[in-house]
Every structure is written in structure tokens, then in C-alpha cells.
């Protein structure tokens, strides 16, 4: 496991508050395992907003496209997707990388453009934790 429950719990309140502010919803509506798109009606512009807000809230740098890049891991682009659809290797990699997402939600076939539909508040807790870790190591 990349991060412990305690690691996630340490950043979650601020991530949830930032998410609620970005989406204009009540913080009580934000659940750790909610789908940002399906449950909280987030759109692509909200992800851009969220990343900038998290950078300010946690004083970290989160390179754009970082989640997808990290999701790909060591797989090349061709190994990860073909004609916009994730390969079997990519699905295995994604289930491990997005361990907070129930595996049954990561269905085949899955288009690369559909990956953000899987994101939850916990996904962004991990984004923050990785950014904090990178900052310490820099």
C-alpha cells in the first residue's frame, strides 16, 4: 500500500474542504470514496480548479497531467492505451494505482478519457501526499 489510512486521514479534512469550495457543495456531501464526476457532478474544469486550489492549500506543486502520468507508471503510451482504449496491462496497473477505487468500477473496455470518472476525494489525497513527498525529496 502506497499510503496508510493515517496518511490519508491527515490530509483528508483539508482536501474535502478544498473540494467542497471548488465544487460549491457542502463539505458533508464530500465522502472519501465518492466519484467526483458521478456523485459530485464535477466536470473537467473542476479538476483544473481543484489542482490549483490544492497547490495553494498545501503549498505544493502538482504538475498538470500528473495523475494520468503516474497512473501509466512504467508502461509506455502504446502499452497503456491503443486507439484511446486501455490495454489489459493498463487495467491491471490502474487497479493497483487507484487502489481506493473498487476494482469492479474499473471495467473493460475503458477509454483513457474515462479515467477521471474513477477519481474520488481519496485520489486527490494521494496526489497531495505524493506532491508533499516529492517536495521533501527535492
Amino acid at each position, binding site marked *: 500500500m502506497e499510503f496508510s489510512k493515517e496518511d490519508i486521514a491527515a490530509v483528508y479534512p483539508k482536501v474535502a474542504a478544498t473540494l467542497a469550495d471548488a465544487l460549491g457543495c457542502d463539505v458533508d456531501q464530500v465522502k472519501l470514496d465518492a466519484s467526483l464526476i458521478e456523485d459530485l457532478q464535477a466536470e473537467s474544469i473542476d479538476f483544473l480548479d481543484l489542482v490549483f486550489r490544492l497547490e495553494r492549500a498545501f503549498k505544493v506543486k502538482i504538475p498538470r*497531467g500528473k495523475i494520468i502520468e503516474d497512473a501509466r507508471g512504467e508502461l509506455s503510451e502504446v502499452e497503456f492505451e491503443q486507439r484511446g482504449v486501455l490495454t489489459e496491462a493498463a487495467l491491471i496497473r490502474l487497479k493497483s494505482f487507484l487502489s481506493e477505487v473498487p476494482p469492479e468500477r474499473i471495467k473493460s473496455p475503458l477509454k483513457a478519457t474515462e479515467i477521471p470518472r474513477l477519481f474520488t476525494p481519496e485520489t486527490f489525497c494521494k496526489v497531495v501526499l505524493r506532491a508533499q513527498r516529492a517536495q521533501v525529496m527535492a
Partner: protein
Amino acid sequence: MSGKYSAFTFCDRIIEFVPATSARAVFLVPAHLGEFAACLVAEAVGQLAAWVSMAHIGFRGRPVAALAGETRYFGAVGAGQTLGLDIAIEHCDEESVAYSGRATVEGHEILRLTDCVAPMLPQRDYDEPEDLAQQFELLRGPGALPGRFAGCGRPALTPVEVEGDKRRVTRLDVPTDADFFSDHFPRRPVFPATLLLDSAIRVACELVASPSRSCEGHWRLTRMTHLKMRDFVLPGQSLALMAELLATSDETARVGLTARVGERTVATARVEFEAPGESR
């Protein structure tokens, strides 16, 4: 390129430029204009940030209005006065730009934008990169001809629903043809977000000036927060502009704004007003 970058372009000359970092510019508000709305001042600041960010990526992409964390309104610019524009880029690459900026008149700050973010979209869908590069060089050099902006009018608003002094819904019919579409944008006309907001703010002004509130005079717009543009508004579309009172006191009023095309929410923001007689 005769006439291009005149109808809805608010920068005459860039007087300081640090690539990908900051810029200062000036824009003369033509003396013949009756007024130059605050939304156009904000547009001018945003456009300067757009020039800097587009130049940074060789004009391959352009930012399109998306998010503004906070806009503060301190004053107005009059016809015949020169706007000073000043922006600082926080982040800028092929994907997005983040910036803050302000506008001044004779050294006095009249508007401040903070925490603005926009995605960069493919330039060729909207304009000719070569034309933009050429215009940018002109702005950085001798400058464009001042006073070329002819004004852009305000679309008529049709009241649809009034719920006491709590909520108003008004229809805005976007024109199918208008001069500003030639700049915004040459290859793909889009109704400027700032003009949409100008109309939405007018609806909010009517709401807070409701006769049921006791004080007389004009409530002054002081702040806009949480601006989020979610979709393009196209020529000929009909918009429902909703203003909803969120909180009010003797001194201030806070209003939520939503703009919809059909069922689709295309823009949201919150605005704050100061009661007549209250000062900054």
C-alpha cells in the same frame, strides 16, 4: 489584418514584458464612449495575461476564460482616460495558465483579479497564430492605434421570473451577429464571458436594489468570487440568468449567479454589494 483586434481587444501597447512572468500595458478608453464597464476592465487584464501566456508557447494555444477566484472592484475608468494594466503569471504552459492582475487609472487601483486559471486550447480552432504573433510584436513595439474600440453595447434582458426580493431569472438572447465576434474569436465566435457576467451582474443589481430594502441609492458591486465558466456560449443562444440572494445585512448583500443554456449550467459566480453610503 485591417480592423482585426479592434472590436474586442483592450490593449494598446505593452510597456513592460518579462516572458512567462509579468507584463504592464496601457489602453486608452475612447473619449466617445458613454461608459467602459467594469467587466471590460477585467477583460483587459485577462487579455494581457493571455498575450503573455500565448507568447510563451509560441501562440500554439490560447487561454479561454474559465476560473477567477476573486475580482475586487474599487472604482471606474472614464471615457478618455488611460487604463494601466498589470499582470503576474503564476504558472504557464501548454496546458493552462494561472495569473493575477490589476487595472489602475492615474495610479489608483480600480480592479484587482486574483487566482485566475484557464485551460489553453488549440489556437488554430480560434484564430491565426501568425496574426496573433504579428499583433503581439506591434503591441510590444510602437503599439496599436489608440481609440479603435467602438463600444459593444449591452444586450436586452427580458425578465422571466421574480420571486420577491430573493430570486430573479432573466433571459438574455445572445446576438447572432455582433462586431465583438470578429475578435472573440476570428475562427470561432464565442459570446465573451465578461459580457455574460456584465448582464448577470445587472440582474443581481436589480435584485439587491429591490424596493423592499429600505435604503436608497445604488448598491455598489465590490467583489466577485468563485467565477467558473463551464461551457462556451454561442451566437444566437438564449441564456437564463439567475440571481439568488444568499445573504444580506444593512451594509452588504451577497448574491449567487447562475447562467444556463437550457438545462446546462454554463457559468456560476458569487457577487457582493455594498449598501449605499458604505465606503471601501
